[in-house]
C-alpha cells in the first residue's frame, strides 16, 4: 500500500494563505498608522520604518543563523514590527525602538520556534520591556497640532473632548490616538472574516461595564490610551489567544477586567498590554476548559463519574 500524503484526498485547497491573512492585518493597521504619521510627522514615519525593518532583519538573521527555512515572506514579522511601532511615543529615540523590535522577534517569537509557537504577543511584550527599560523616553508625548511636548495623556490628567479623542487630536503613541481609524481597520478584519470580533468586543464591553460601575467617564476611558488598539488587534491575535469561541470570550473578558484594575488600582496609567500578556499566559488553560464536544463522542471519564454520582444521589 502507498501511504504518502500525495496520494490521499483532498486535492483542492481554498485560496487562504498565511501571507494573505497578514496582508489583511497590515491593511487593517494602515489607517491608524497613516493617521499617526500625519499627526506626528517625519520622526513617526522613521520610527515605524525602523521597527518594521529591524523586525524583518532580526527574523532573517535569526533563521539564517540557525539554518531554518526563511519565513519573512509570510509577513508576520512586518505585522509585529508595525504593531510595536504603533504603540511607541512619536519622539522615541530610534535605537530604543530597534532594541524593542529585536526583542519582540528574537526573544518572544523566534526562540520559541517562530510563527505560531510564541506564547505571548511579541509587540505587547516588547512594549512592556521598553516601558521598563526606557521609562523616561516612553512617557514623553507630543500634542499633534502644536508640537508641544507633554508627559501627560488623557489617562493621567490631560483633558480633551470626546470628539478629539475619537479623531485623534490628542497626545499619545503613534498608532493609537485615532479611535476612528483603528475601528475602521478592525471592522475590515471582522468583515473579511480574517479575525473574530468576539475577543475585542468582550474586552471593550467588560471594560466599559466596569468603568461605568466604578463611576468613571466611560467614553473618555474607552477612547484614551492603547486600549482601542490593543483590544482590536492584540486580543484577536491567532497564536496567543484561545481558538475556541467561548475561550475567546473569556480571554476578552479577562483583558477588559485586568485593564480596568491596572488603570485604576495599578502603578501604570495604561494596562491593556499587561492585561493581554497576562491573559496570553492563561490561554492554554482557557482552551482546555472550552474544548468543543466532539459530535457523538462518548462522555469524558470525569463527566461519566459526575453522572454516576448524580444517579446515586437521586437514588
Amino acid at each position: 500500500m502507498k501511504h504518502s500524503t500525495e496520494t490521499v484526498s483532498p486535492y483542492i485547497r481554498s485560496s487562504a494563505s498565511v501571507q494573505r491573512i497578514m496582508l489583511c492585518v497590515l491593511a487593517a493597521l494602515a489607517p491608524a498608522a497613516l493617521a499617526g504619521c500625519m499627526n506626528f510627522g517625519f520622526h513617526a514615519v522613521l520610527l515605524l520604518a525602523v521597527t518594521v525593518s529591524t523586525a524583518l532583519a532580526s527574523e532573517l538573521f535569526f533563521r539564517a543563523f540557525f539554518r531554518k527555512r526563511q519565513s519573512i515572506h509570510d509577513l508576520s514579522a512586518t505585522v509585529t514590527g508595525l504593531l510595536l511601532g504603533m504603540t511607541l511615543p512619536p519622539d522615541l529615540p530610534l535605537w530604543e525602538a530597534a532594541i524593542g523590535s529585536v526583542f519582540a522577534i528574537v526573544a518572544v517569537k523566534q526562540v520559541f520556534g517562530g510563527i505560531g509557537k510564541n506564547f505571548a504577543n511579541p509587540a505587547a511584550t516588547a512594549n512592556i520591556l521598553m516601558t521598563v527599560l526606557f521609562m523616561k523616553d516612553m512617557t514623553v508625548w507630543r500634542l499633534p497640532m502644536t508640537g508641544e511636548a507633554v508627559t501627560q495623556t488623557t489617562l493621567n490628567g490631560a483633558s480633551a473632548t470626546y470628539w478629539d479623542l475619537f479623531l485623534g487630536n490628542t497626545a499619545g503613541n503613534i498608532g493609537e490616538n485615532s479611535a476612528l481609524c483603528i475601528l475602521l481597520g478592525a471592522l475590515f478584519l471582522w468583515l473579511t472574516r480574517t479575525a473574530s470580533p468576539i475577543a475585542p468586543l468582550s474586552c471593550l464591553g467588560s471594560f466599559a461595564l466596569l468603568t461605568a460601575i466604578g463611576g468613571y467617564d466611560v467614553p473618555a476611558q474607552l477612547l484614551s490610551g492603547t486600549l482601542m488598539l490593543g483590544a482590536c488587534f492584540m486580543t484577536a491575535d491567532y497564536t496567543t489567544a484561545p481558538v475556541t469561541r467561548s475561550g475567546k470570550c473569556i480571554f476578552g473578558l479577562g483583558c477588559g477586567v485586568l485593564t480596568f484594575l491596572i488603570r485604576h488600582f495599578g502603578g501604570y496609567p495604561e494596562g491593556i498590554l499587561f492585561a493581554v500578556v497576562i491573559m496570553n499566559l492563561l490561554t492554554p488553560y482557557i482552551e482546555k476548559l472550552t474544548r468543543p464536544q466532539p459530535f457523538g463522542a462518548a462522555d469524558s471519564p470525569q463527566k461519566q463519574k459526575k453522572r454516576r454520582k448524580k444517579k446515586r444521589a437521586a437514588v
Partner: protein
Amino acid sequence: MKRLNGIRLPRKKRTEEKPIKPIPLPALVRIPMLMHSGTPCTPAVRAGDYVTVGQCIGTAPDENSVPIHASVSGTVSALTEYCTVTGETVPCVEISSDGEQILCDTCTPPVLESRDDLIAAAKASGCVGLSGSGDLTFQKLAAVKKPQILIVNGAECEQYLSADSRLMSETPEQAVGGIVLLMKLLKIKDARIGIQTDKPLAIQRMTDACKDEKGITVCPLPPVYPQGAEKVLIYHTCGIVVPEDQTAADMGILVLNVSTCAFLYQYAQTGIPLVERVVTVDGDTIDKPCNLRVPIGTPVKELLEYAACHTDRVRTLLCGGPMMGMLLDSQEASVVRQQNGLTAMRRAKSSVRESACIRCGRCMEVCPMNLMPMELNDAYQRRDPAALQAEHLRLCIDCGCCSYVCPAHRQLAEKNQQAKLLLQKV
C-alpha cells in the same frame, strides 16, 4: 437543530444540466477483479473464451466479496494484472468487444419476496456502494438487524460531480422504485431522501415521484460540504446522533446511495447485474464536461477523449471528486464500479508547501465532527496514540475540510488518515 460545520466549496457543477449519455462502445475493456472493499474475485474465464453481457467472469471466493460480470460481449483477450487505486495488484480480465452487446441468458429478473431474497439478489447482482465507497451492499443490508429508517443519500456535495443529481432529475421513478422495494422487503416505514438545496430540479422531481408513496420524505440539506458523509446525513435528515461506539446499523438505520437504490430497482426489473454506471467527467483540463453511462472496465482514456480533455496538461487524475477522490496513477486505469466521477485537474498537489500552524482555528471551525485537527496533527507528529484517542481521532470522517481551509496549507486530513493507520498498528 444545530447544523454541523462544513465548507462552502466554489460551485463547479458545470455538468448539472448535461443529460446522461451513453459513451460509444469501447473496443476493449479491462475489468479488475477488485471493485469493492473486500477480497478480490477469482477469474472464472480463460483467454479465448466468448462472453456475453452480464455473464459472471469473476467469482467471489468468500463472504467478503461479490461476483463480477462482463460489461461487453466479445472474446476474452487476456488475463492480466491491474493495480487498483488503493495500490493492490489484482487479476484483471481483458475483453475485446464484438460490438453486439448480446445479453447473457442467465439475466432474468430475480424473485424478490423477503429480506433474504433481497440480500441474495444484492449479492448476485454484484451491487456495491455506487457513491465511491465500494462497500458491499449485501453486507450493509444484512448488518441492519432491525431496520427502522432508510436514509437515501442524494446529497452529492462533491465539487464537479452531478451523476446522482442527473439520475434523480431524469429517472426519479427508478430511484423511488428502489426505495419502495427496499421498504417493502425490509419492512421499513420511514424513508428519507437527503438532497442539497442547490439541486432544486432534483428535489422537485423526486418530491413529485414519491408523492403517492407513504412514508417517503425528501429532506433538503444545506449546500455545504460534507453532507453525504453517513453521520452528517443521518443527523441532518433525522436529527439522530450516532454515538462514537455504535454504528448506524446498530441503531437500525440503513444508509444507501440514491444510485444504489436505482440500480437495485433496475436489477429487480431486468436481472442485469452491475455492468455499467454513470460517471461525471469534469475538471479544469476538460473542455466538454459530461455525464456518461459507461460499461465497467472502460479505460478512462476513452472518457477523457470523449470529454475533449487536454491530456498533456493533466497533473491530477482522480477517481471521484477532488475532496474525497483517489489518485489514479495513469490514464490506462479502468472505470470501476464505485467510481462516480473522473476529475482531471491541472494543479498538482505538491505545488503547495506546508508552513507552521498559526493557530487560526479555522480547521476546528469547519470540522463537522467538532474535532480539533491541529491538536490531532500535533499528537500524530509526536506519534502519541493515547493523545490521538483522547482527541477522538476515531470520529474523523476523512472529509478533508480541515486541509481545505488551512491557510498554512498543512495536510491535516491526510495526516489524520495516516494517524488512523498508526492506531491500528498499536
